[in-house]
């Protein structure tokens, strides 16, 4: 006869950089149920956006999440561009692809580091973050900020890449690839990592689809679901196919992200080599009219924006559905049946971004 105990996991926990609470019902060492407690990072951003002028909301949209801030600003700008019927110059679209894939590289490297730290590989954590600094340097050189760039604006981009910088970027991408290839082997082959991750936190293909998993969590369960396949922006003009792994466990989720870093570096090189000449910004005027949905692929999965135009330069409704929000039900499916010691690894394996999810 085993006792059922409830263990609070979080909100302040060494594994999480952000606060989320999971109440874990355990019997002996086995988790039987997980009850999430959210709201520690709720900032009321959607309501805040309705009080502002729509141009000022770019800054707010970037601060939904500091990790994937560029893609948030791109999605918001693309919504407003649809409402204003502004055509974005092709050069700006390609620059947006470069920065969004750069933010994917830095987000995945950040996550791989935290993931390594979760199963005790501190040196691997440091190595991942060392490589990540190179991508941040690129963002700073091309965009102006290390993590929050403020370079995407309605109608295009604020800053252009000159020819020298374009060549320097291509070279730097090759060096990031070389550095990363030196440290990525443990995620595939290391015995201890396999011991901690293979067969842990399994999400079957059917569960992934029925619970609405998105992003790397979905792709690690053998489903080739990726919003970039819709071909928004310049994605229809570059060679792209999603990374898929079949295992559905923590190890597969790690492998998907390692391979996505390489895929993203490849996309950046392609975009920089094909970068069209021309303007980087279209001027716009007029009033917002109507409503729009926009889906884009974040490092963590599909994100959905809904913008409804209001009178007098403000928005009537601003709604964001972020990937972590969609990935919490699959997480609650993965947890029951696992050991208490595996909980940090499983929770991290969905790459929880609580700031996104709670806004």
């Amino acid at each position, binding site marked *: 006869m085993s006792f059922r105990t409830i263990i609070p996991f979080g*909100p*302040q*926990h*060494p*594994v999480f*950089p*952000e*606060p989320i609470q999971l109440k874990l019902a355990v019997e002996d060492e086995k988790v039987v149920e997980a009850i999430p407690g959210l*709201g*520690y*990072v*709720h*900032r*009321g*951003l959607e*309501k*805040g956006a309705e*009080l502002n002028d729509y141009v000022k909301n770019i*800054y*707010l949209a970037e*601060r*939904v*999440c*500091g*990790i994937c*801030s560029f893609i948030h600003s791109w999605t918001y700008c693309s919504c407003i561009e649809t409402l204003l019927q502004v055509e974005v110059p092709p050069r700006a679209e390609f620059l947006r692809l470069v920065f969004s894939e750069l933010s994917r590289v830095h987000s995945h490297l*950040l996550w791989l*580091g935290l993931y390594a730290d979760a199963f005790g590989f501190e040196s691997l*954590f*440091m190595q991942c*973050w*060392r490589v990540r*600094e190179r991508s*941040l340097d690129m963002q700073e050189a091309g965009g102006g900020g*290390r*993590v*929050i760039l403020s370079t995407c604006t309605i109608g295009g981009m604020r800053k252009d890449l000159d020819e020298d910088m374009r060549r320097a970027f291509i070279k730097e991408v090759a060096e990031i690839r070389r550095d990363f290839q030196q440290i990525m082997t443990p995620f595939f082959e290391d015995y201890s990592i396999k011991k901690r991750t293979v067969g842990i936190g399994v999400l079957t293909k059917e569960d992934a689809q029925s619970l609405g998993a998105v992003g790397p969590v979905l792709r690690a369960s053998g489903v080739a679901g990726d919003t970039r396949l819709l071909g928004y922006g310049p994605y229809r003009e570059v060679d792209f196919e999603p990374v898929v792994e079949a295992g559905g466990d923590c190890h597969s989720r790690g492998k998907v992200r390692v391979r996505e870093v390489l895929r993203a570096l490849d996309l950046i090189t392609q975009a920089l080599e094909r970068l069209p000449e021309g303007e980087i910004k279209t001027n716009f005027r007029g009033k917002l009219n109507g409503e729009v949905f926009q889906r884009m692929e974040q490092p963590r999965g599909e994100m959905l924006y809904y913008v409804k135009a209001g009178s007098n330069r403000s928005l009537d409704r601003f709604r964001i559905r972020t990937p972590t929000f969609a990935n919490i039900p699959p997480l609650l499916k993965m947890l029951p049946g696992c050991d208490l010691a595996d909980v940090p690894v499983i929770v991290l394996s969905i790459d929880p*971004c609580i*700031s*996104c999810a709670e806004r």
Partner: protein
Amino acid sequence: MNLSRARSPWVLHYDASSCNGCDIETVACMTPLYDIERFGAISIGCPKHADILLVTGTINHKSLRVLRNIYEQMTEPKVVAAIGICATSGGVFHQSYNLLGGVDKAIPVDVYISGCPPRPEAIIDAIVMGVEKLKKKGKEGLAGSAEASSG
């Protein structure tokens, strides 16, 4: 005792309700390029071990209690640093219905660092300034206990 505390401060990081920008810069300080271990500082998960508390983000109604809890669990002497403009005054979210304002509404703050997000150099500066405060507080604490024992 006071010298060794100043040479090896343990740092605790809590995200009160930030957008992650400051958090990842705080963690970046602990990694090879910026490396706060040069100053003897190391990141720790347990509030009871920590000397310096780095708070990012404004506080909302739910994180207020958690933050106070963490602060009360830390042993004296302790220093609190507010990282980023949100932790200082509310920043870009100042209009929000759910936020109370800067971290100083909940707990006493010793060091303020602005920026959205602040650069890692600024965060390192906050830790170094925090260490100075820690030394001062340690001395005052010693003087206080000496008076108490002699009195």
